[in-house]
């Protein structure tokens, strides 16, 4: 299962990086969103999957899954949300001011 998830992470990463490499700002943002999906899965799979029960002590099992990655992912999710929100707004403000959402047109030529 872990290997399957890691391969899935690889697929998601590939897709995301392809998007990130594109010229359109929205595609780039979408790419970063998918990148964060991928890495969350990766962190989870690195802690080992399905080796125990839900990390709630009320479940009274002998063995719980690794709770630490879950906590880390939670933090990471919230942070990536914050960043995504910011860059989204940034993108549309940039579009308002610059009149383009094409990164090819955002090279900037301030110096000769």
């Amino acid at each position, binding site marked *: 299962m872990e290997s399957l998830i890691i391969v899935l992470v690889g697929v998601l990463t590939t897709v995301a990086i392809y998007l990130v490499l594109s010229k359109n700002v929205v595609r780039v943002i979408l790419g970063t969103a998918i990148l964060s999906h991928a890495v969350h899965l990766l962190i989870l799979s690195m802690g080992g999957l399905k080796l125990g*029960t*839900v990390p*709630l002590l009320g*479940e009274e099992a002998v063995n719980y899954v690794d709770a630490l990655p879950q906590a880390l992912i939670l933090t990471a999710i919230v942070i990536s949300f914050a960043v995504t929100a910011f860059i989204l707004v940034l993108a549309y403000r940039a579009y308002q001011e610059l009149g383009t959402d094409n990164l090819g047109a955002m090279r900037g030529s301030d110096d000769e």
Partner: protein
Amino acid sequence: MIDTILTIALSLFILAIILALYRIIRGPSMPDRVVALDMIGVNLISGVAVFSVVLSTHAFLEVILIVGILAFISTLALARFVERGDIVEHKHNR
């Protein structure tokens, strides 16, 4: 026996999701896609419920309700978007 049935049920739900996914990918119109997404949300509710049965845990019952709530909110937002692009109105009686 029960496990087999539940696995079949889960697989069927996921199958339904795949079919809906096909509709999302194909379109052709935006509302088609939203309808399909709504359906995925509904199937997810069922899926999580069944999975709770598989694991016989209560930990995911919150998830069911949340999926319900969020499927509604996102469908609403998407419908708004499809309808008029502006999903939150600025003023009433504009």
